[in-house]
């Protein structure tokens, strides 16, 4: 990406400090990062093998290049495979030309380059956001496992193919698997992604998954298995600003990556509902849904549309087809302040909910409303940043309420990364534009940022387990933004661990966490036992060599966060931490959740050796119950003065 690594590493563009995790971890050298996605555009500069040595000997994968559109691999892009039988069994149709690992959608190229793409100077989107594109592990090798195809009934990727992708990736010898897809939150035994990820983690592979884009609805988080790293999405301090100027003198900040208006003058302004076709409802027309607009009313005007209604509708396309000169896309209430810069097919700007109300009020207040949209330009240093994207799926975890998900947040709004050159950025047939780099937004985009950091940690600490890598990443995250205030959500209200997990990723801190919360396969099996799975169900997961312990409590599952569900009076939770830093003494700092008293025993932990493990108990006692709050949040931090090992505490006092 052209800015997100500078933002996360707090570095200036082009400056890499010697102490940076990139230098320390040799830019992820020879770690192998895979994604399960829509394939790869192999000709992208992000996957050029210039300067790369021989392929690591542990690699056992291959490149499926058996069709005219097949993917040719190199010493950077070392594998590309595709899995389509599950898609076809569901009714998907593929012909011989599109049956390959080549990415004709763009998503897979974008995510893979974000995780492990090369340094590519001069990357931009139609001239905007110019900078050096790079992945989190720029010297890692990458492999694409295509499991997603053209949508059928709104779904692109099918369990049978996802499991085949995991089975192949594990065999091929990858170190990190990045998965920017998911379904509704579901039971672990009914989910090919959870099962595939379990086998990967069992083989020492880190699996990073996106939390989903169903926010800000509570309980919407998906990919909640405890062996996954689940990633929410937040903003950067960069915006592609395109101001909306109203004739009444108001100037409203919006964002866009569209071309400018052809004339430097005010244009007539109309709302979708005013432009409605004869048989359309006001509500549908306001959202500029297909066949709801009357071209006679729209032609030559700037059309104001309300966001939402259907994720698959390109409102810019609807506006253009109706003859609009431009479009103002007004956030709905749920989207709040999160404004996304898209490469719309016509001059456009997306504005906040509050500003959208201003536009509608202005339209309603005059017989001759006029507006103008300025040409987009990139601005950095925006405050506050990061803040949580409204779309980012939220906890609580509806499958296992005793486990906090998501685990972490990372940049996922307006991310520039490599793109397919098989289709346009809007995917509209008439849109003939091609761009080797494009912006995308979603937890799909934040997920590979974490995968890239996991790749660095794999290079730096090859002996660390997937759980240790997760622990290092999450316990070093921050919860404050660049104003030094607590991170906020899309409505600019204080965000909680249900949206950001432990907080926003800090790659430099993650390389030296001090202490880690480790887990092995038996711990995950204990977790499943404690979750109430029957022994017969557990047998396949456990290879038959495992017995549920007499007493297994979810509260004692050694997760880095502490979540106590339905706390009645008092509960004690046990955790164990392993020293991965230097000998020293750690002391605990506690932040009590509202109405809850937290005590920790012991309050100091002394480590004489690296690898030494110590346990501690956390007792939570209800002091009073907050009437309006189903959940309350606090935290504890172990520190030796150099390291800060943070754990959020989440408590519900209702069953």
């Amino acid at each position, binding site marked *: 990406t052209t800015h997100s690594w500078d933002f996360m590493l707090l570095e200036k563009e082009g400056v890499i400090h010697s102490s940076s995790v990139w230098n320390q971890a040799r830019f992820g050298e020879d770690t192998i990062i895979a994604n399960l*996605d*829509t394939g790869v555009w192999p000709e992208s500069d992000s996957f050029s093998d210039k300067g790369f040595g021989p392929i690591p000997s542990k690699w056992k994968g291959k490149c499926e290049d058996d069709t005219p559109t097949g993917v040719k691999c190199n010493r950077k892009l070392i594998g590309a495979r595709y899995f389509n*039988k*599950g898609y*076809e*069994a*569901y009714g998907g149709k593929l012909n011989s030309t599109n049956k390959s690992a080549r990415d004709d*959608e763009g*998503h897979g190229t974008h995510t893979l380059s974000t995780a492990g793409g090369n340094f590519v100077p001069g990357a931009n989107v139609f001239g905007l956001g110019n900078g050096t594109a790079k992945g989190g592990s720029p010297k890692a090798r990458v492999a694409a496992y295509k499991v*997603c195809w053209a949508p*059928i*009934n*709104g*779904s*692109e*990727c*099918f*369990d*049978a193919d*996802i*499991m*085949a992708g*995991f*089975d*192949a990736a*594990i*065999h091929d010898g990858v170190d990190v698997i990045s998965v*920017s*897809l*998911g*379904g509704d939150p579901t039971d672990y*035994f*009914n*989910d*090919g*992604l959870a*099962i*595939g990820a379990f*086998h990967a983690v*069992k*083989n020492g592979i880190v699996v990073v998954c*996106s*939390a*989903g*884009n169903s926010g800000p609805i509570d309980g919407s988080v998906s990919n909640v298995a405890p062996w996954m790293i689940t990633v929410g999405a937040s903003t950067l301090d960069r915006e592609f600003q395109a101001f909306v100027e109203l004739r009444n003198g108001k100037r409203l900040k919006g964002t866009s990556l569209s071309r400018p208006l052809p004339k430097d003058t005010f244009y007539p302004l109309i709302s979708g509902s005013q432009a409605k076709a004869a048989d359309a409802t006001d509500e549908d027309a306001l959202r500029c849904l297909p066949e709801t607009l009357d071209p006679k009313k729209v032609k030559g005007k700037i059309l104001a549309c309300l966001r939402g209604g259907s994720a698959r509708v390109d409102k810019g396309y609807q506006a253009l087809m109706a003859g609009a000169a431009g479009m103002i896309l007004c956030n709905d209430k749920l989207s709040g302040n999160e404004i996304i810069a898209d490469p719309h097919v016509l001059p456009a700007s997306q504005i906040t909910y509050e500003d959208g109300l201003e536009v509608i009020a202005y339209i309603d207040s005059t017989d001759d409303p006029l507006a103008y949209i300025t040409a987009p330009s990139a601005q950095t240093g925006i405050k506050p940043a990061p803040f949580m994207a409204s779309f980012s799926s939220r906890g609580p975890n509806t499958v296992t309420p005793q486990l906090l998900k998501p685990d972490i947040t990372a940049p996922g709004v307006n991310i520039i990364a490599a793109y397919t050159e098989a289709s346009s950025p809007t995917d509209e047939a008439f849109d003939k534009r091609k761009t080797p780099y494009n912006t995308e937004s*979603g*937890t*799909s985009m934040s*997920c590979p940022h974490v995968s890239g950091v996991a790749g660095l940690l794999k290079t730096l600490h090859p002996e660390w387990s997937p759980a240790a890598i997760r622990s290092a990443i999450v316990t070093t995250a921050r919860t404050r933004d660049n104003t030094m205030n607590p991170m906020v959500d899309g409505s600019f209200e204080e965000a909680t661990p249900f949206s950001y997990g432990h907080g926003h990723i800090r790659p430099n801190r993650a390389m030296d966490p001090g202490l880690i919360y480790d887990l092995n396969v038996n711990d995950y099996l204990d977790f499943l036992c404690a979750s109430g799975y029957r022994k017969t*169900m557990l*047998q*396949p*997961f*456990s*290879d*038959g060599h495992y017995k549920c312990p007499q007493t297994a409590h979810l509260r004692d599952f050694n997760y880095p966060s502490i979540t106590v569900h339905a706390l009645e009076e008092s509960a004690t939770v046990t955790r164990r931490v392993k020293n991965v830093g230097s000998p020293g003494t750690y002391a605990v700092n506690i932040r009590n959740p509202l109405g809850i008293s937290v005590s920790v025993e012991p309050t100091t932990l002394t480590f004489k050796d690296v690898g030494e493990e110590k346990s501690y108990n956390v007792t939570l006692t209800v002091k009073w119950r907050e009437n309006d709050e189903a959940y309350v949040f606090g935290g504890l931090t172990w520190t030796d003065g150099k390291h800060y090992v943070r754990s959020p505490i989440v408590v519900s006092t209702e069953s």
Partner: protein
Amino acid sequence: APAFAIKKSYIVYLGSHAHGPQVTTADLDGVTESHYEFLGSFLGSKDKARDAIFYSYKRHINGFAATLEEEEADEIAKHVPVFLNKGKKLH
């Protein structure tokens, strides 16, 4: 009862493989054969199983994906985890 039962694609999950990482082609063929035998015991013949199975997970994940009638899937689910081949979305 309908004249033609509706078939859907399912995943039958059997856990992990006994074979280690140094697996031979014969081992892999043996896995597929065992999947045919397992499903064949429910469908009545190995040939029917061969027609139904479209993925045999052979390396690390033990299981297969097959097109089955709901009743057949329900019967297998009495013994091992079985779930629909569901769709997921890009995020």
